[in-house]
């Protein structure tokens, strides 16, 4: 299990390879990659800045990963989340999960993303034609996370 918060970009292929390296129990790797869109809620986005809460962020991500490991039959989880200034098409977040079978890998990856979206202390500030604006939380993200508590 690894959790990283970093200003630096990451290499998806290398991260997946490292996560499953040498583990012949693994039959399925499901990966979510989040990237910066140039359109958000109908507004053109020229830049994005990601702020976080140092100290809490890694703890929150580790707690989410622990919860995923308790719920699903998986081997390993990697979470990388970038902070700082980003541009459209830049990579923001990577969640990768290894398992013997695809069902648990898919479920666990989605679970981690849904919880990350509502529980990990990151905030986006978008630069649009009308200036820089903090992004509002989405009701759909709360709904997605609530699915797992049913």
């Amino acid at each position, binding site marked *: 299990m690894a959790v990283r918060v970093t200003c630096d970009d990451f290499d998806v292929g290398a991260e997946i390879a490292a996560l499953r390296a040498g583990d012949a129990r693994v039959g399925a790797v499901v990966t979510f990659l*989040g990237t910066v869109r140039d359109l958000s809620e109908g507004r053109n986005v020229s830049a994005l800045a*990601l*702020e*976080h*809460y140092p*100290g*809490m962020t890694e*703890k*929150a991500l580790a707690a989410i990963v622990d919860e995923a490991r308790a719920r699903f039959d998986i081997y390993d989880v990697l979470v990388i*989340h970038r902070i700082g200034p980003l541009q459209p098409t830049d990579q*923001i*977040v990577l969640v990768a999960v290894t398992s013997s079978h695809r069902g648990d890998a898919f479920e666990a990856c989605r679970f981690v*993303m849904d919880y*990350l*979206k*509502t*529980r*990990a*202390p*990151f*905030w*986006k*500030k978008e630069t649009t034609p009308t200036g820089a604006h*903090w*992004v*509002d*939380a*989405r009701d759909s993200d709360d709904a997605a996370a609530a699915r797992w508590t049913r």
Partner: protein
Amino acid sequence: MTSVAPAVAAGITVDLVYLARLREAFGRSGESLTLPTAADATVADILAVLVARGGVYASELASGRAVRVAVNHEVVTATHRVQRGDEVALFPPVTGG
């Protein structure tokens, strides 16, 4: 001889942390706050002290504005009891990922 002990002696001091929109609105990333209450102070008491300042504190923390609170890096509700030296962070709903 009959004077009451000053309230500050019975109060507790916590470290407030402001993040994202709140940090920008308050013009600071945090502050040390001494609550004029006894040991059973809650998160709600902290919010009440800040709202009582008026201005951006009242508007940003008004009921109806979504504000989350973490004490020592764990998200809590308004009834959570705070202890001397707690790190109490106030922030908007998260939007990462």
